C-alpha cells in the first residue's frame, strides 16, 4: 500500500484582491487535489465570495496566481492565458453553482434546454442525443421527465437549484465552484440537495470548492476547511479538526455560536 503522489488539480499562490484601497482577500495559498472538496467558511464580508470569484476566473486578482492542471494541455496559469482560452476552460472543465439559481439558469428557456444548451456549447449537435442526456440528467437530480419542457420559473427554489446543478454537471466538468448552494432553501429541501450533492461528488470524483457560512453544510460536504476573517485565512485543516478542535479565536467563536438543535 504505497501512497501515490497526486498532482494537484488547482494550485493557488498568494492570491490577493483589493477593491481600490479596500481589501477583498489577501495572500491566499492552497492546493486542491482531484476528488477533494474544500470548504471556505466565514461570516458575510470575510472575503469568501471575492476569493471564489478570483479562483473561478470571474474577477482578475490584484496579485497572485491560479494554476490549473487541464485535461489535455498541462498546467494553465489562469490569468496569463487568453480570454477565449479561459472561456473554453470554464465551459468544458469547470462549473459554477450560484447561490441564486437565477444567476446560473436561463429563466426564459425550458429546463431541458437549460441542460441541452450547455451540451451544444461544447459541440453536441444531435437533437435526440441532447434531449436524451437532458432527461437523464433531470432524473439524476430528481426532476421528473414530464417537467422537461417547463420553464424554470415554474419550479420551486429547490428544484431550480437542482436544475442548476444538472446544467453544470452535464458537460462532465472536473472542478465545480459553489457559492452558498443551499442558502435560502428550507431545511428539508436543503437536506435533499446536500444528499444529492454528496452522492454526485463522490460518484463522479469531482473536485469542489464550496463557500458557505453554514458549518453543518461544511461538515457534511467538505474534506478540508479554510476559515476566513477580514480577507485572510486564519485557520485550515481537516473539516472535523477545525470544527471539533478549533484553535484560532475566530474559529472558536464561529463554532461556539452555532445553535444546538
Amino acid at each position: 500500500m504505497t501512497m501515490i503522489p497526486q498532482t494537484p488539480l488547482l494550485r493557488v499562490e498568494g492570491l490577493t484582491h483589493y477593491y481600490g484601497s479596500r481589501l477583498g482577500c489577501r495572500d491566499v495559498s492552497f492546493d486542491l487535489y482531484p476528488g477533494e472538496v474544500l470548504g471556505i467558511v466565514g461570516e458575510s464580508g470575510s472575503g469568501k465570495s471575492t476569493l471564489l470569484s478570483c479562483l473561478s476566473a470571474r474577477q482578475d486578482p490584484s496579485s497572485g496566481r491560479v494554476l490549473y492542471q487541464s485535461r489535455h494541455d498541462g498546467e494553465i496559469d489562469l490569468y496569463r492565458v487568453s480570454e477565449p482560452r479561459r472561456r473554453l476552460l470554464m465551459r468544458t472543465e469547470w462549473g459554477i453553482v450560484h447561490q441564486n439559481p437565477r444567476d446560473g439558469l436561463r429563466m426564459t428557456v425550458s429546463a431541458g434546454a437549460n441542460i441541452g444548451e450547455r451540451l451544444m456549447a461544447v459541440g453536441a449537435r444531435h437533437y435526440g442525443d441532447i434531449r436524451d442526456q437532458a432527461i437523464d440528467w433531470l432524473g439524476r437530480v430528481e426532476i421528473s421527465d414530464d417537467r422537461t419542457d417547463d420553464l424554470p420559473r415554474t419550479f420551486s427554489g429547490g428544484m431550480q437549484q437542482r436544475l442548476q446543478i444538472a446544467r453544470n454537471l452535464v458537460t462532465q466538468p472536473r472542478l465545480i465552484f459553489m457559492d452558498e448552494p443551499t442558502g435560502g432553501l428550507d431545511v428539508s429541501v436543503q437536506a435533499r440537495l446536500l444528499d444529492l450533492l454528496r452522492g454526485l461528488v463522490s460518484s463522479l470524483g469531482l473536485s469542489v470548492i464550496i463557500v458557505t457560512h453554514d458549518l453543518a453544510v461544511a461538515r457534511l460536504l467538505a474534506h478540508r476547511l479554510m476559515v476566513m476573517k477580514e480577507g485572510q485565512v486564519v485557520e485550515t485543516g481537516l473539516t472535523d479538526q477545525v470544527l471539533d478542535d478549533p484553535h484560532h479565536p475566530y474559529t472558536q467563536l464561529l463554532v461556539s455560536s452555532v445553535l444546538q438543535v
Partner: protein
Amino acid sequence: MTNQTNAPRPAVSVRDLEKTFVLHTQGGARLPVFAGLTLDVFPGECVALHGPSGAGKSTLLRSLYANYKPGSGQVLVRHGDSTVDMVSATPHQILAVRRHTMGYVSQFLRVIPRVSTLDIVAEPLITLGTAPEEARARARALLTRLRIAERLWSLAPATFSGGEQQRVNIARGFSVPYPVLLLDEPTASLDAANRATVLELITEAKQRGAAVIGIFHDADARAAVADRLFDVLPVPSQAA
C-alpha cells in the same frame, strides 16, 4: 522506523504527547489535558484507557485519530509499509490512514439525512474500492449480528433509539478490517446480548491482528477484552 527486525513492532506508538485546550472565547483559559504521554500498542492486543471521568481518555482517543490536534509529540501509526505521524501528517495522509488503517467508533452516530442504515454501514468499504454489492453483504451480516431489524435497514437512523444508533455505529466501525481500532465506550447503552456481540467482534478483531485501544466504563466488558490497562490521570490544574 524502516528497519526490519524480528522484534514485534507496535501498530501505534505514542511519543511524548501533549494536549492543552486554549479557550479564547472564555478569556484564554488554558486546560491542560495530558503531557509527556507515551504508549505502544502492538498488533493483536487490546489496551483499555483507564482513569476517572474527565481525565482525558476521550481526548487521547480523538488525538490518536487526529480529530484533535495535540500541541506536541508524535502519534506514529504503521500504515501499510510506511509510518505516519498523525500529529504532523498532511490532511491527505490523515484521510488515507483513516480509510485504510485506523477505525474509530465514537459514542454517537453522526446521522446524515436521507442516507440509509445499510449505506452508512457499507460506506467505508465502498470508499476503499470494494464492490458495492460485496460491501452491502458485509453490512447486512454485521447488522444481523448486532440485531438491527431488517425492516430498519432501508431507513436513515435519525429516528432510531440510542442503543440502535450505537449498534449502527459499531457495525460501520467494524465493516473494514482495520489494523487499528479506537473504541470510545462501545458497549455503553447496550443490552446484555448486544454487549456480548460487541465483545465478540472485538475479540475477533484482536485474533486477526488488530491493535485495539478502547475506553470501557463497564468493568466486566473491560475484563473480557482488555489485555492491559493504561492509566490516564488528570493533569493537576495550574494557574494560567
